[in-house]
C-alpha cells in the first residue's frame, strides 16, 4: 500500500531528541530533528541544499540554535533558513531546508508528512496514558523490515497471539472468542473488541498483576489510521466486572499503544508502549513488562520480516483467504486505501 500523506506520524519519543542531531526517515523522507536551546523540537530536511550532505552526519553539529553542515559549513536556523555560507556574504535566497510541522505530545514527537498548510495539531490522536498521573509506562521501538500494512494486519487481528505469542500473551481463548468490529466511517476509526469471560491468565498478566487462576480478559482495540493503535486491556479475576457507575477498582488496566510509522515502502518503525494503572512504583514489574513486551514485538518482527521476503520475491496474484477473525483488518485496509487515494494528484485537483 502506498504512503498515506497529509497525516501526522510518530517520528520519535521525545526522550530520543536532545541537543544532538537526530535523523529518522518517515514515509521515505529523511528528516533531521533537534531541540532548540529553549527546548522546542524542530524538524527539517536532513540534506544540505548545497551538495546534499546529510546534516545528521558528523562533523555536522549544532551551534546555539543553528545547524552547521559538516561538509562546507552551510548554516541553518531552527526554521530551516540558511543564515551563512562559506566565503561570501550573500546567502542565496533559495538556500532553505524544507521544514516540518512537529508536535510533542503524550511522550511522542509527531511530524506532519504532507503539505504544511494542512497541518492541524488538534487532529493528532491521543495516547494520554504514556504521560499521565496514575499510570506507569514502559516503551521501545523496533525496526521492522516489512511494509507497514503487514503490521496493521497483525495488530488488528489478535487471534494470532494464541499461535505466535504462546507462553507470553497468547492463550487458547483469544483465538476461540468471537470479535465485534465497528467502523466510524466519518471519523475513520476502527474498533475491534474481544471480551473473554473465563480465560487462562497468560504469564504477561499473571506475573505483573499477581492474579492466580482464571480471568476476565477484555481486549478493546481502537485504530486511528494511519499511525496510532490503542489496545485497552482489562484483566480481572473471573466474575469481576465494572460497577454500574463505571468504576472498576478491582480490575487491572493495561493500555498498549503502538505507533505504526512507515520508514520506506518496505520498512516500518514499530513503536510500542505498555502503560498500567497498578504496581506503579514497582521496578520489577516495569522491567518484566518491558522485557516481555519487547520479546512479543520481536516475535512479530521475525514473522513479518519473513512474510515481507515472501511477498517481495514471489509473483503477485496470490489469492488471500479471509475469515471471521479478519473483519477488523479488512476494514482497516479499506480505510487506508481510501486515505491514500484522497492524496493522489487527481483527487487533490478535484478537491480544489
Amino acid at each position: 500500500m502506498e504512503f498515506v500523506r497529509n497525516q501526522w506520524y510518530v517520528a520519535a519519543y521525545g526522550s530520543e531528541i536532545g541537543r544532538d542531531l537526530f535523523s529518522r526517515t518517515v514515509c521515505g523522507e529523511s528528516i533531521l530533528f533537534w531541540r532548540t536551546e529553549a527546548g522546542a523540537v524542530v524538524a527539517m530536511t536532513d540534506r544540505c541544499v548545497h551538495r546534499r550532505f546529510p546534516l545528521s552526519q558528523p562533523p555536522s553539529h549544532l551551534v546555539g540554535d543553528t545547524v552547521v553542515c559538516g561538509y562546507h559549513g552551510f548554516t541553518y536556523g531552527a526554521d530551516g533558513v540558511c543564515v551563512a555560507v562559506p566565503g561570501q556574504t550573500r546567502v542565496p535566497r533559495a538556500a532553505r531546508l524544507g521544514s516540518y510541522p512537529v508536535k510533542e505530545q503524550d511522550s511522542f514527537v509527531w511530524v506532519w508528512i504532507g503539505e504544511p498548510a494542512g497541518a492541524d495539531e488538534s487532529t493528532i490522536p491521543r495516547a494520554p496514558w504514556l504521560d499521565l498521573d496514575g499510570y506507569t509506562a514502559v516503551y521501545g521501538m523496533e525496526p521492522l523490515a516489512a511494509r507497514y500494512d503487514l503490521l496493521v494486519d497483525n495488530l488488528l487481528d489478535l487471534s494470532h497471539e494464541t499461535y505466535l505469542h504462546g507462553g507470553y500473551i497468547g492463550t487458547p481463548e483469544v483465538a476461540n472468542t468471537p470479535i465485534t468490529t465497528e467502523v466510524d466511517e466519518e471519523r475513520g476509526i476502527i474498533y475491534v473488541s474481544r471480551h473473554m469471560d473465563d480465560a487462562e491468565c497468560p504469564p504477561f498478566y499473571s506475573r505483573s498483576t499477581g492474579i492466580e487462576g482464571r480471568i476476565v480478559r477484555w481486549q478493546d482495540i481502537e485504530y486511528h489510521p494511519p499511525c496510532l493503535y490503542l489496545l485497552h486491556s482489562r484483566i480481572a479475576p473471573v466474575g469481576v466486572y465494572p460497577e454500574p457507575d463505571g468504576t472498576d477498582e478491582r480490575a487491572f488496566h493495561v493500555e498498549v499503544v503502538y505507533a505504526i510509522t512507515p520508514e520506506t515502502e518496505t520498512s516500518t518503525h514499530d513503536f510500542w508502549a505498555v502503560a498500567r494503572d497498578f504496581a506503579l512504583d514497582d521496578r520489577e514489574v516495569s522491567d518484566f513488562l518491558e522485557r516481555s513486551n519487547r520479546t512479543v514485538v520481536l516475535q512479530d518482527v521475525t514473522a513479518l520480516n519473513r512474510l515481507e521476503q515472501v511477498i517481495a520475491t514471489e509473483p503477485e496474484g496470490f489469492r488471500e483467504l479471509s475469515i471471521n477473525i479478519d473483519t477488523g483488518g479488512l476494514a482497516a485496509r479499506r480505510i487506508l486505501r481510501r486515505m491514500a487515494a484522497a492524496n493522489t494528484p487527481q483527487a487533490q485537483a478535484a478537491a480544489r
Partner: protein
Amino acid sequence: MTPEPTRLTGTGIYRIVWLPGSDLLRGYCWCGTTQEAEDPVELWDWLLRHPEQHGGDAAPYRPVPPTGRSRAEMRV
C-alpha cells in the same frame, strides 16, 4: 455476564458481530438494517453498498460472490 463490547451509535457507524457459538457474522448498517453472512468480505461489501439504498425502495439483497482479492489488488 460481560457487558457487550463497544456499541457506537450515529450516522456512519457500521458494526459486524460474530455471533457467539456460530461461524456467522451479522452486519448492522447505521440505518438499522441488518444482514448475515459467513464471509467478512461479502458482508463488508453489502454494508458499504447498502447506504445507496437508503431513502428508496430497498432492493432485495443479493449475496456478492467472495472476491478472493489478491494482495496486489488490496494494495491499490
